[in-house]
């Protein structure tokens, strides 16, 4: 087994990042923290696209385009999430996801 990175090294790396993101999404109390964990997930997904593009279909560029789309979606999502957090914070004075449990606050 050689130490120079091959496909499985890359895949394991992105999987580790993804599972760390899952842990964050499930355990974070602060909504902004949850958003950050989601960004981790998206980032590792984009990385997977690029890894497979590099190792499995080198002459084509579709994986890179998918990565671009993911980045764009992440941007849109972050904008909306920030607006929501600000609105929630204005009415509840907290962004703790465990305490935001009533509708029509």
């Amino acid at each position, binding site marked *: 087994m050689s130490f120079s990175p091959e496909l499985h090294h890359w895949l394991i790396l992105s999987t580790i990042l993804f599972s*760390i993101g899952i842990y964050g999404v499930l355990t974070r109390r*602060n909504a902004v923290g949850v958003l950050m964990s989601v960004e981790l997930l998206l980032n590792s997904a984009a990385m997977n696209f*690029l890894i497979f593009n590099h190792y499995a279909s080198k002459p084509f560029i579709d994986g890179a385009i998918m990565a671009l789309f993911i980045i764009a979606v992440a*941007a849109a999502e972050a904008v909306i999430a920030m607006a929501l957090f600000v609105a929630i914070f204005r009415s509840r004075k907290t962004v703790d996801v465990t305490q935001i449990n009533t509708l029509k606050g």
Partner: protein
Amino acid sequence: MDITLNPADLTHTIAFYTLALTSIVAALIVVTAKRIFRAAVALAVVLICGAGFYILLNYDFIAGVQLLVYVGGIVILIVFAVMLTSSLESIEEPPSLGRKALGLFSSLAFLATAVIAFSETKFPLSSISAEQPKDVAKAVGRKLLDYGAGGYVLPFEVISLLLLASVIGAIVVARNPKRKNEGSAT
């Protein structure tokens, strides 16, 4: 200069493992830091490392976009969200034990499943002689505006619509309802 690194190089290997270690440690800080702002900084580090990975994979254009959009836009937005919703003194309480156990279990289960799947699967790797497009930026641009078979012009337009919609939606959601009638310009 084209950044081309040969995967067989020692520098490539060292760079890969350094970046991998840094990004994993930073990702752990992102999910466990009690001070939310430190998590945001760690997220920036993870994303910068991600750009490093893309350069190692020879997609330098994507790396540039990652830096530009993720670090320059999204992280700054998140930092803004942190600044608007908490203060330096606010320290997040640790999650309850059950939650922690659930999170740990599901993430480890996912990790184990994925690793087993990787080791079982035979991926159809492209041949060594296959060449990557010389200029990634040019190839991506041509592909994005290609309306023939395999072109991405429709998703591209949809993404632009999505971005527009999200910007308008964000303005509507974050607007202070009390000051709606004043018609502030900003």
